[in-house]
């Protein structure tokens, strides 16, 4: 097996509005296990970014530590990336977002990274409403250290080594809802048809957007008895509805039966179309979303799709009232008051 990606690209590869092909959004070959759910998520990010014509270099990728956090190497090779400290991606992303409000921030984390060591930073990034896509690649175990249970493992879930988890799981989706997140979704790495439009909408959303993606660990947690295996998730998954993301300039072509369809316009003029499958959930109502999550959980099912969305939430920069020009582009003349002002300050200290 070769670890070199061929440089050749077919001249007729589809180009997006910016003239970029999908190749321009790809990166190094993955070194994760064959069949890893995370690689499907990377591919979904590539597809979403290509299709929505985001300039690759206007994206910054940030991650913590773990299998999930390695993945930013495997997508968007023309974007800067930062593989930081275990559980601390949210703070690095917060600082980066503060410095330049114009870039798109994609944070990649895992269940160990976000639900254990980094749960504090996760919670505060939600609370601060940092404008970013926060992807949790959730496999219920610590892959890089060989399969220990993580804090998102369900009670009774059996690892490949045979241990049965006895501690209650932490559900990052419920937590984000409680903490006031403006965009909350859950998906499955094996369901690209759902994941790609969710990623597009999450990127277009202004503010913190969480997508908790159940992403089976083929090596340590894809066995019978695991609740994060491909088979288990496929059997227990229920979706909130069909979901479409429509960029601002595209004509709406999808047809939905009247009465069950919702359209939400995002701040940049793009829109989200949601055809609900279950009338008990209203993804525009936080209480309804929380209720639905609990209901599905009680019946042993996993609710996926867009769970909650609030387009009026104020992101970190709006709350701080920072200037429109990115802080990292302010020049010395914007920032330095000069000696005359300093002499006045001296006078006030005499």
């Amino acid at each position, binding site marked *: 097996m070769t670890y070199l990606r061929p440089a050749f690209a077919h001249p007729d590869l589809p180009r997006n509005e910016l003239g970029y092909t999908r190749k*321009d959004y790809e990166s*190094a070959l993955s070194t994760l296990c064959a069949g890893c759910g995370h690689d499907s998520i990377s591919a979904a990010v590539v597809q979403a970014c290509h299709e929505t014509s985001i300039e*690759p*270099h*206007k994206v*910054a990728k*940030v991650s913590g530590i773990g299998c999930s956090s390695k993945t*930013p*190497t495997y997508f968007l*090779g*023309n*974007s*800067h*990336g*930062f*593989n*930081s*400290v275990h559980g*601390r991606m*949210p*703070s*690095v*992303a*917060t*600082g*980066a*977002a*503060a*410095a*330049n409000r*114009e*870039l798109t921030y994609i944070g990649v984390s895992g269940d160990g990274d976000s639900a254990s060591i980094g749960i*504090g*930073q996760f*919670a*505060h990034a939600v609370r*601060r409403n940092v404008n970013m896509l926060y992807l949790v690649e959730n496999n219920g175990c610590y892959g890089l250290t060989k399969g220990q249970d993580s804090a998102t493992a369900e009670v009774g879930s059996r690892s490949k080594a045979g241990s049965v988890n006895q501690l209650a799981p932490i559900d990052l989706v419920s937590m984000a809802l409680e903490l006031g997140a403006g965009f909350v979704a859950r998906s499955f790495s094996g369901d690209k048809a759902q994941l790609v439009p969710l990623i597009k909408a999450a990127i277009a959303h202004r503010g913190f957007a969480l997508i908790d993606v159940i992403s089976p660990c083929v090596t340590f947690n894809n066995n019978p008895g695991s609740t994060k295996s491909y088979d288990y998730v496929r059997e227990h998954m229920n979706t909130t509805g069909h979901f479409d993301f429509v960029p601002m300039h595209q004509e709406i072509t999808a047809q939905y039966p009247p009465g069950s369809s919702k359209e939400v316009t995002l701040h940049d003029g793009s829109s989200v179309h949601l055809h609900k499958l279950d009338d008990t959930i209203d993804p525009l109502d936080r209480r309804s979303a929380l209720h639905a999550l609990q209901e599905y959980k009680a019946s042993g099912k996993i609710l996926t799709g867009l769970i909650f969305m609030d387009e009026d939430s104020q992101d970190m*920069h709006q709350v*701080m*009232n*920072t*200037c*429109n020009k990115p*802080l*990292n*582009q*302010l020049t*010395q003349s*914007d*920032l*330095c*008051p*000069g*000696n005359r*002002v*300093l*002499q006045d300050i*001296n006078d006030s*200290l*005499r």
Partner: protein
Amino acid sequence: MSASPIVNDLVIRFANVNGTGSASANGLFAKAVFRMGIPVSPKNIFPSNIQGLPTWYEVRVSEKGYLGRREGLDIVVSVNPQSMPQDVRSVREEGYFLYDNTKPLDIRLQRNDIHYIGLPLTRICLAEYRDPRQRLLFKNMIYIGALAALLDIDFSVLKNLVQDQFQGKEKLIAPNIHALELGCQYALEHFDCPLGLRLEKRDLVGDRILMDGNAAVGLGAIYAGATVAAWYPITPSTSVVDSFDKYCKRLRIDAGSGARKYAIIQAEDELAAMGMVIGASWNGARAFTATSGPGVSLMSEFLGLAYFAEVPAVLVDVQRAGPSTGMPTRTQQSDILAAAYASHGDTRHVLLIPATPKECFDMMAEAFDLAERLQTPVILLSDLDLGMNDHVCDPLSWPDDRVYDRGKVLDAEQLDELERYGRYLDVDEDGICYRTIPGAHPTRGAFFTRGSSKNEFAIYTESDEDYAKNMDRLVRKWNTAKSMVPEPIFYPRSEPCRIGVIFFGTSTASTLEAIERLAEESIRVEGLRLRAVPFSEDVERFIEEHEEVFLVEQNRDAQMRTLLVNELGVNPQRLHAILHYDGMPITARFIQQTIQSQLASADTPAMDQVAEGGR
């Protein structure tokens, strides 16, 4: 009373209750001395408490310009019954004890060797004010007024200060001046004013200013163009960000839109604060955090990452006595090793060590240039004494032709000209490589930032060769840093000296005073003030050129000596540590006495015989 009065040389201590508004009145006193043109050095001695515990404010007045702390209290103003026994004891022989004599003094507090000055503060306040809050607050102004008479403070100076202080709250001016007058009048009527210990107007402070170090650090960040401050509250560093915030509101808000040209983020903890600084710096903004020792411990993992990933970062460590449940309101220089080698793996960090608010300002501005030139964390090592006390220092200045040095950053045009960009390629052979900022170029210059598993092109590798090569380059960079950081300051004498003393930070004023006092006793000592790590060759030379070398530090374990020994390979026997670590600022007498006693002993003490100090 003595026939020849002592003029402009005294230490006065105010004993108050925390949270009773004494701080502004006491500050007024210090500022009045300063405005009379006399060098003054106030120090807060306060508990870790919001309201109720004893707090002291000590002001040294020195015609000779000695600005370190001095032992021996000439005057104690006692406004706190709780600490009265201890306050009475603390007055030097023939000194003065000012107290509230509304109630008669406890007979057990009578001493024969000091002067008692009774002021009926409570009685005056009860007669004059109805509101309990006013009775409490104006008591402070009344004793300041009494001191004006007793010490011969120019009353117009006090009046002007009150007017300045209450600008915008004009209603408060008259009642405050009235309270001052009440005290002044009482003293004039009941005592032989002024005392044998008094103040006289001079012209000794020139154009200097009175400022605390933390305010200067915050202002330095403004001038340096810092746009992101991420922090977590911790004494004694909190006022650094308060100052940055205050000056930002004045200088960084767009007049038209009200939009802010800065972001201050109160993080959830110090780990997050450091992460935010690193994220913002990586993304091309100038960012900083301010903390104290416990925060440095929490930030250590991130500091190591920033060192290896070569991300600029500025960290202000306002040192205090350790540990976490230590003495957060007492001063020390005890984070030297924690800061210098913060983190795991082979790490070392650039330290800047200011001694005055003016240097706090200058070095904070310098810190950002250095952090970006060297692409590494730079730690400004201040301490509580410097940060939270006012100091007389030279006025601040900013050359308008100064240009921020953003270091080696490639823009889109430069990237286009490159054949292949390597983030960790040492093109200039100074150990410093070229970085790019996210978003710089559509197809060139992007790289993946990570710790050490990378080659010169920032491609993932676990190659032993690449790892070692990178580590060696980081040493090369460290050596380059030696020529960039502030030089030590040499205090030579005209005659040759066999004795040298090394010191840094807030030990400076007291050490310089000790050098002068030793000279008066014909002990000639040359001084060297460290201002940065890595050390320059001048430090090595100074140690070589003096037979006896003393090193003054405000910590127990001679941390700077460890650093000097480790970094320069100095023989530890060559450095005699003078260690002061009780949480109070070091004094000249302590330094002088330690040097004298060590010189007097037949053999100068070796490494295991360091002088240890209380007060």
